[in-house]
C-alpha cells in the first residue's frame, strides 16, 4: 500500500486511520522555531461520516486509502440496495443504506451523482449540490399569492419533504440545494 508523508497532506487526501478510510478536511502545520514540528489534521471518517482530530509528528507516514470518487448514474432501488452505473464502462455498483445515507432523498433515476468507492465498493454517495424535482404532494396553492412570505411543506418525487412558498402546487418542479435541503426556486417545465 502506498503511503503519504505529512508534508504531502492537503484537503481531500484519502488516508487510512485506525483501519478506516478517511478524508483530510484541514491540515495545520504547528512548529516552534526550535522544536518538534507537528501536523494537526481534521479528518472525516468516510465510513461513519464522523469528524475527528489527529496529530502527527511531521515526517511521519500514513497509508493511503484506496478511495476514489467517481461520477455515476443512479438507476433504481430494489428496497435493499441502490444501483448505480458508470456511464463510460457501464459497470454497475450496488450501495446499501449505510453507504447511501440521506442521499436517497435526492436521487432520481437517470440523475448523476458522485459515488465514493473504497477498495472498489461504494461507501458513500453525494448528490449534486442542486437537483430539480417534482412536487408530488402539498396543500392546495393560493392563487396569485406570490408576494407573501409564508411557506408550507411539500413532498417531492423522491420522498424528500422541503418547505416551499404557498403558491406552489402539486406537479410543479422545484430546484433544491441538497446540502441544506432548502428550496431555491420554481423551475419551468
Amino acid at each position, binding site marked *: 500500500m502506498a503511503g503519504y508523508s505529512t508534508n504531502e497532506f492537503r484537503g481531500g487526501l484519502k488516508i487510512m486511520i485506525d483501519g478506516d478510510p478517511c478524508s483530510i478536511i484541514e491540515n495545520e502545520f504547528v512548529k516552534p522555531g526550535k522544536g518538534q*514540528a507537528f501536523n494537526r489534521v481534521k479528518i472525516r471518517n468516510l465510513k461513519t461520516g464522523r469528524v475527528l482530530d489527529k496529530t502527527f509528528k511531521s515526517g511521519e507516514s500514513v497509508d493511503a486509502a484506496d478511495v476514489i470518487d467517481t461520477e455515476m448514474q443512479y438507476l433504481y432501488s430494489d428496497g435493499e440496495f441502490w444501483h448505480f452505473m458508470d456511464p463510460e464502462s457501464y459497470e454497475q455498483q450496488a450501495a446499501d443504506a449505510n453507504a447511501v445515507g440521506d442521499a436517497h432523498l435526492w436521487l432520481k433515476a437517470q440523475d448523476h451523482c458522485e459515488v465514493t468507492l473504497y477498495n472498489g465498493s461504494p461507501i458513500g454517495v453525494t448528490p449534486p449540490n442542486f437537483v430539480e424535482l417534482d412536487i408530488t404532494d402539498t396543500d392546495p396553492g393560493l392563487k396569485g399569492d406570490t408576494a407573501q412570505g409564508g411557506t408550507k411543506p411539500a413532498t417531492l418525487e423522491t420522498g424528500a419533504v422541503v418547505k416551499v412558498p404557498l403558491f406552489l402546487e402539486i406537479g410543479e418542479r422545484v430546484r433544491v440545494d441538497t446540502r441544506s435541503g432548502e428550496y431555491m426556486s420554481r423551475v419551468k417545465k
Partner: protein
Amino acid sequence: MSWQPRAELSVIRERARVYRQIRTFFNTRGCLEVDTPLLMPTTNTDVNIASSEVVCGERRLYLQTSPEFAMKRLLAAASGSIFQIGHAFREGERGRLHNPEFSLLEWYRVGYDYRQLMDEMELLITSLSLRQCDFSRISYTALFGKTLNFDIDEITLEELRDECATLVPGSEPTEFNFNQCLDLLLGMVIAPTMRGYQFVYDYPVSQAALARVSAQDAGVAERFELFFDGVELANGFSELTDAAQQRARFEADNRAREQCGLPCHAIDEELLAALRAGLEDCAGVALGLDRLLMVLLDLDSIDQVLTFRD
C-alpha cells in the same frame, strides 16, 4: 498563472516602513548594520531544523537557517553590537505561519544579557507599532504551571505523555520524548490561550539551543521567546561563548540526528575557532519580520505578507 504579487501594495509599503524604522532605531543606538552570506559550507546542526542544500559548481553549500554563526564570527572580530535584516531558509516548513524562505531581523548586543535584550526588544516593537504596547514576562516553568497546573521539573515522562493524550485528542504520544511532549502542549494547548505581547524566558536546559546556562539555576538556559497572541515572533539568548561547550552541543545535536535517521552536519570549525579567539559576553535575538508584519497589520496568514511565493 498569476504574475502579480501575492501581497497587497499596502503590505509591501508597510514592510518598507518597518525596515526603514528598524534601521533608524539601530543606527541611532550605535548598532552596525552588517551583511553575511546566505550560502555557507556548513549549517545548523539542530535536530529540528532542516537545511536546504545548493549545488554551486563543484561545491555543495547550505542556505543559512539564520545568520547566527557568521554574525558571531564578526562579534569575535570586535565588530561591536551588530544587526542584520535578511532572508533565512528552513526546508519543509510550510503552513499558515511558515514559509521555507522567510525574513529575519537578527541583532547582537555586546555586554547585554537576555533580560536587557528583552528590554530593548520592547522599545523596538513599540517604536515599530507606533503606539503604546503592553508586554508581560513569564518563565517557561511558570507558564506551564499557570496554564496546565503541573510542574515540568517534577512531572515524569509517563505523566507528561498522559497529559498530552488527554489535552491533545488524537495525538499518540507514547513514543514522544520529554521535549516533544512540551512542544506539543506549548504549541497546541498553551499558545492558543496566550494574549498580547508576552515574553517566555528561562527555557529548560535541554532546550538551551545556543543559550548560556543560567549561573543561578543549572536547570535553565538564559533563553527567551516573544509571542503575540500565542504566535512565536522572536527567539533570543544570552549567548554561549564557551568553545568547548559549543562543540559538545554540536556533537550532541549530531548524535540526536543520527538517532532520528537524519544526516549529520559537519561542525562549523570557523565558528569554534572564533569562540576560542574570544567572544565577549553578549546577547542576541532573531525576530521573524513576516510574522511581525502579520501582527502589525492584523493579518492571519504569512501568505498575505509574502511579496511573491515559490
